[in-house]
C-alpha cells in the first residue's frame, strides 16, 4: 500500500554503488568545479557543448563540471586505481538545448590492461543495466577492428570521419555511395559494408568477422574481442550482450573495447563507456584506462516511476471533528505504514482512499 519513498533512479544508484564496492572499487568524491582549462583542452571528449563557467575569488576561470572522467584522470594519483562515483554534472541536454543538472553513476579503472580488466568492466556494465531492468541490451564493439578497416581504405582522416558517422547510423547506402565517390576498391568497400551490416549475438558475429580480420592490427583486435566475449559468454547476461559496430566513440580518445547500454522503455542509451587509453596519453598518463557511466536522469522516463496517486489516505475533517479522534486516526494509519494527510478540503492531490470524519466527535 505505502509507496516507496526512493525514486527508481535513487534505488538504482544505491544498488550500483553496492555492486561496484563488491568488485573492489572505492568511492571517489570530487569538488563541484574544476579549472576551465581542463575542459577546453579536451573539448571533443565531452558529450555536449557548453560548460557553465564563472570566476573564483582571484579571477581564475572555473567551470561546473560537465564530465567526471576528466576530473578523475587529472586528480587520481598513482598508476593503478579503481574508483566509482555518484555525481551531478552540468551540461546542455540534447533535446532542449538548455543547461541541465544530470545525475551519473559510473566507474573508472585506471592502470592494468589485459583481457580480464576488459571483461570485468563489460560484465559490470551488463550487471549495472540489470539493476535497472532485466529487459536490457548491452552493445559492445572494438574500435581496433573499425580503425584497422578504415585505415585500409587509404583515405584521409576527414573521409574516415564521415564513414564513421555513416557506420554509427547503420547507413549502408551512404557508406557505399561515399566509397564509390572515392573509387575505393570493391574488396575494401565490402569489408566496410560487412561491419555496418554485422551485429547480433557474440558467437554469430565473431564467426562472420573472422575472415575480415586475418592480419595485422585487425587480427590483434579481433583476438582481444574474442577472448573477452568467451568470458562474457559464460555469464548469466550472455544472451543480452550483442556485438554492434554502430557504437562509435570518438577515436581521438577511445580505442579498443567500447560499449553502450539500453533498457526497455527508455528511448536512448542509458550507459556509455569504453577503453580510453588515448585520452590518458593526451593527458600525459602512461597507463591505460577503461570506464563507463550510467545516466540516471534518463530513468525518469521509466513507466514504473509513474504513480497513480500521491498519498495513501485522505482524512477529511471539519470544525466539528474532535481533535483527539483526528490525531488517533492519523497515528493509526501511519502505524499501518500508510502516508496520510488530514485536510478540511480535498484539494488537487490524488488519494488512494478517503476517510470522512466530518461532524464526528468521537470514535
Amino acid at each position, binding site marked *: 500500500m505505502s509507496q516507496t519513498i526512493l525514486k527508481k533512479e535513487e534505488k538504482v544508484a544505491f544498488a550500483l554503488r553496492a555492486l561496484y564496492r563488491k568488485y573492489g572499487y572505492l568511492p571517489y568524491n570530487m569538488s563541484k568545479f574544476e579549472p576551465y582549462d581542463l575542459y577546453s583542452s579536451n573539448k571533443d571528449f565531452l558529450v555536449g557543448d557548453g560548460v557553465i563557467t564563472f570566476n573564483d575569488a582571484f579571477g581564475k576561470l572555473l567551470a561546473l563540471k560537465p564530465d567526471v572522467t576528466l576530473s578523475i584522470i587529472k586528480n587520481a594519483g598513482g598508476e593503478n586505481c579503481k574508483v566509482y562515483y555518484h555525481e551531478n554534472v552540468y551540461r546542455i541536454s540534447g*533535446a532542449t538545448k538548455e543547461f541541465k543538472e544530470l545525475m551519473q553513476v559510473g566507474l573508472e579503472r585506471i592502470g592494468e590492461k589485459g583481457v580480464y580488466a576488459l571483461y570485468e568492466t563489460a560484465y559490470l556494465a551488463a550487471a549495472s543495466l540489470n539493476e535497472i531492468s532485466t529487459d536490457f541490451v548491452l552493445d559492445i564493439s572494438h574500435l581496433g577492428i573499425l580503425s584497422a578497416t578504415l585505415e585500409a581504405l587509404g583515405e584521409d582522416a576527414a573521409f574516415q570521419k564521415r564513414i564513421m558517422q555513416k557506420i554509427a*547510423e*547503420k547507413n549502408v547506402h551512404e557508406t557505399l555511395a561515399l566509397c564509390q565517390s572515392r573509387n575505393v576498391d570493391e574488396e575494401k568497400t565490402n569489408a566496410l559494408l560487412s561491419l555496418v551490416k554485422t551485429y*547480433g549475438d557474440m558467437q554469430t558475429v565473431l564467426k562472420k568477422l573472422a575472415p575480415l580480420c586475418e592480419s595485422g592490427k585487425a587480427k590483434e583486435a579481433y583476438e582481444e574481442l574474442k577472448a573477452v566475449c568467451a568470458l562474457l559468454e559464460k555469464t548469466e547476461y550472455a544472451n543480452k550482450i*550483442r556485438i554492434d559496430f*554502430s557504437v562509435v566513440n570518438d577515436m581521438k580518445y577511445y580505442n579498443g573495447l567500447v560499449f553502450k547500454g539500453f533498457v526497455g522503455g*527508455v*528511448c536512448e542509451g542509458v550507459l556509455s563507456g569504453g577503453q580510453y587509453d588515448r585520452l590518458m596519453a593526451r593527458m600525459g598518463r602512461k597507463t591505460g584506462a577503461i570506464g563507463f557511466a550510467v545516466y540516471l536522469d534518463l530513468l525518469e522516463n521509466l513507466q514504473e516511476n509513474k504513480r497513480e496517486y500521491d498519498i495513501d489516505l485522505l482524512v477529511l475533517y471539519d470544525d466539528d471533528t474532535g481533535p483527539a479522534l483526528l490525531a488517533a486516526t492519523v497515528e493509526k494509519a501511519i502505524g499501518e505504514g500508510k502516508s496520510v494527510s488530514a485536510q478540511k478540503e480535498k484539494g488537487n492531490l490524488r488519494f488512494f482512499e478517503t476517510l470522512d470524519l466530518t461532524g464526528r466527535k468521537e470514535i
Partner: protein
Amino acid sequence: MINVALPKGRLGEKVYATFERAGYECPAIKEVNRKLVFENAEKGVRYFWVKPSDVSIYVERGAADIGVCGKDILAEYSPDVYELLDLKTGVCRMAVAAKKDFYDDRASTLKVATKFVNIAKNYYAGKGREIDVIHLNGSIELAPILGLSDVIVDIVETGTTLKENDLDVVETIMPISARLIANKASFKFKTAEIEKLTEKVGALID
C-alpha cells in the same frame, strides 16, 4: 508491434503503398476520417500521420520505432537515429540558387536565405566562406529578387519555380530522397521485426 511515423501528404501515401505491397497493410488507413492512428494487430504494425518535419522527432524520442523522413530533415537536424534504407522516392536535391546574373566575387560576406540554416552553415563552413544566414520559413525564392539575400539554399525538384522567377541553380549541395529511419533503442528490442520489415520494403525498391 512496430510503430511507424509516416509524413502526412503525397510522399507518405506513396510510401504507405510500398509498405502495403511489402505485406504491412492496414486497410483502416484508407477510410476518410480524422483519425490519426491506424493499427493492424495481425500484421503487428501501427501507423500514424505526422507533419513531415516532425517524423524525426517522433522517432528520436521513441514515440515511433521507425519512420519515413526526407534526407533534408536528417541533414538539418542530425537526429540520433539509424538510417536503414534509401527509399528512392521523393527524389530532389538541396541546392544553392541565385539570380541569373549573380557572380560571387568573394569580396564580401555572402547573404544566404534559407529554411535549412544548419545545412547552409555546414556547407559554407566546409568551403571556408563567411556567410550571413537569413532564416525564412517560406517563399525563399523571393529573397534574392528583392535583394534580401545574394543566394538561397533550398530544395529543388523540377526547377520550375526557380525558372519562373529568373533564378538558376549555382551548385548542388546533396541529393535528397525519403529515408527509412529507426530509433536506436527500439532497434535493440525489436531487432527481428524491424529487420524483417526493412528487408521486405528494401526488396521492393529498385
